[in-house]
């Protein structure tokens, strides 16, 4: 059984992925419109105060969720949830930088065994290094039985 505290000591809060990207306004607006969003600043790319829709921000944390040397715990991680914290409006069409670290690791035990929860957090910065938003991705791994 993997030692959760040891994992936390070794991996928490260390940036393991950095990437530059630009959000295309129409892509975010598409997600917003299909969601049923009604606010023009999310659905109209021509709106003066257009900003990236929170659910689109959540998609930015997809991809490599774990440090490359993170140990295999069992089966493939399942997408257990996502969270977005909006600190400033995230603009479209401008360079952004995403930095990802493991924010939390915890476990829960039940009748079917132990589940390990891994929270990876992407911090999204603009070109002026202002922190705009946090995008958390919650991965759930059913630990492989040792028997």
């Amino acid at each position, binding site marked *: 059984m993997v030692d959760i505290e040891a994992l936390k000591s070794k991996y928490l809060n260390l940036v393991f992925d950095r990437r530059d990207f630009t959000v295309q306004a129409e892509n975010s607006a598409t997600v917003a419109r*299909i969601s049923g969003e009604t606010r023009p600043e999310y659905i109209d790319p021509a709106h003066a105060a257009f900003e990236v829709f*929170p*659910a*689109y921000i959540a998609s930015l944390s997809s991809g490599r969720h774990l440090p490359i040397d993170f140990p295999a715990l069992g089966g493939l991680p399942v997408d257990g*949830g996502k969270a977005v914290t909006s600190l400033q409006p995230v603009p479209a069409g401008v360079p952004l930088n995403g930095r990802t670290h493991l924010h939390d690791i915890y476990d829960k035990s039940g009748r079917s065994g132990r589940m390990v929860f891994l929270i990876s957090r992407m911090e999204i910065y603009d070109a002026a290094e202002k922190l705009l938003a946090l995008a958390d991705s919650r991965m759930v791994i059913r630990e492989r039985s040792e028997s």
Partner: protein
Amino acid sequence: MSIQSITDIEFGMELGPYLPDTALPNSAAVADAVGWGNAARFTNHERSRKEGLPGALVPGILGMGFLCALIHREIPAARIQKVDCVFRAPLIADQPCAVTAIVTDIDTTAGTAELDLLIRNETNETRVVGTATIRMPK
């Protein structure tokens, strides 16, 4: 009643139900918009079932989008500070679902309110739960 400020928010106030469009082409369009391409799990029921899924899925981020839309539809003055979703079970494309929320806490000094969020399918099974913090004009 039009909700304009934090003082218009009441503890226990319910939002919804909002009945979003879960049509398969919408799932495919969202998957395409976020760069997941034409993955079968979001575009094709039959191929999804062959992969062991109950059908083509509504992407999790679209479920989050439904929740955000509900908040903005019913409280247009709200700004979502944080939204947190737990994907308990898949939402299946082309199957109806209902999106609701309830106000669980209000901080009039900070101008914020907490909401519990819920998406249920047509058999009233919980598929997505979540919480949100909204900021309102004081």
